């Protein structure tokens, strides 16, 4: 057993887990955060994507013990109370989901993608960046639309903030 401690969605958590416990199982079964999904269990589908220290990672491919000490954000940590995160809002607005199973991973991947491309995104980049996330319903069109829209909204909001600060 390992004693793990980390910050999840801004809250300090700790507990004893078997060393072989995957981060996704720690989140889902120990912390009850079932928004992060296990889709393929072979590290391909991306339904389990969370942010670790600000970067998108697959929580099914890392042990909870490896992630001990890290700052984790899951899909439950994105919204600001009742206000959806701009990426969540864009997925809703553009119908970027059907069954919704892949959506938590898609949204965590999308927020990471937008962060890494402050210069803005185009369709080809979004499609290439979705390499690690599989959706079996939508055919991706509306997911791509949603991410492009969210990227624009967030760029505008970012500029607004700078202006205010100035």
């Amino acid at each position: 057993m390992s004693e793990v401690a980390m910050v999840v969605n801004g809250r300090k958590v700790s507990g004893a887990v078997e060393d072989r416990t995957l981060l996704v199982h720690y989140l889902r079964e120990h912390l009850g955060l079932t928004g992060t999904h296990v889709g393929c269990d072979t590290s391909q589908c991306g339904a389990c994507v969370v942010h670790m220290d600000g970067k998108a990672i697959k929580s099914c491919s890392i042990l909870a013990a490896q992630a001990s000490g890290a700052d984790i954000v899951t899909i439950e940590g994105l919204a600001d109370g009742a206000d959806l995160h701009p990426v969540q809002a864009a997925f809703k607005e553009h119908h970027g989901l059907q069954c919704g199973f892949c959506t938590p991973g898609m949204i965590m991947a999308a927020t990471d993608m937008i962060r890494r491309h402050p210069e803005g995104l185009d369709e080809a980049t979004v499609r290439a960046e979705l390499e690690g996330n599989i959706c079996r319903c939508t055919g991706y069109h509306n997911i791509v639309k949603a991410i492009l829209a969210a990227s624009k909204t967030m760029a505008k909001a970012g500029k607004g903030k700078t202006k205010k600060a100035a």
Partner: protein
Amino acid sequence: MYSTSYHRASSVADAVKLLKKAEDGKFVSGGMTLIPAMKTRLAAPSDLVDLRHIAELKGIRISGKNVTIGAGTTHAEVAANDKLASVCHAIVHMASHIGDPHVRHLGTLGGSIANNDPAADYPAATVALGATIVTNKREIAAEKFFTGLFETALKDDEIVTGVTFTAPAKCGYEKFRNPASRYAMAGVFVAKGKDGVKVAVTGAGEDGVFRSREIEAALTKKFEPSALEGMTVPSKNLMSDLHASADYRANLVVVMAKRAVAAANA
């Protein structure tokens, strides 16, 4: 996954100590191959010694054309390094096409070459660049480091600490990805430097990465895609599986080599 014991190493020396205590231990860095392999029970180490938090293994140092990349540097860090891109664009391009964004955030150079997957990208890059693999015990030429399928010259308690190379005048990398797994079915790294032309192939060889002497000879005469027009390479010792026959891969090797040369000359 079978039961295992996790240990976090604070230094390379600490990692060696921890591994020596283990019955059947393994070093883990990003874990992007090892953890999935443990999940499917293809690997079952009694102990995992985590190298990810060792500061001395991280970072990229560039002095003129001389490049040193720490073994713990992630693919995302290599892909995003502008200074490295200005010295050796091909390795940055290559790193930006390993796996997917999430995998690149954890997967490391050291992990990739120590695992020596026959379809991994870094083995081809290090061989073509004539890189030196630095470990906690010695320095090994990349060509001597990769000894076969998932096999390297590393001893059990030996840790790759970094890779050094001198950026060649020109280099390029292109791969043809398996449509499902996205691993290279043939990936070719070409480099034209002081020691001549080196061409390393991944994804196609039965024993992993290898140098294509035929393509090297043709590109030595003329470093242009047209030098490979109509050329064939032997399919003996190439992989044959449900995705592609050895002959198909042999053809892909030439096609990827042409594209890599075009990228190198661009």
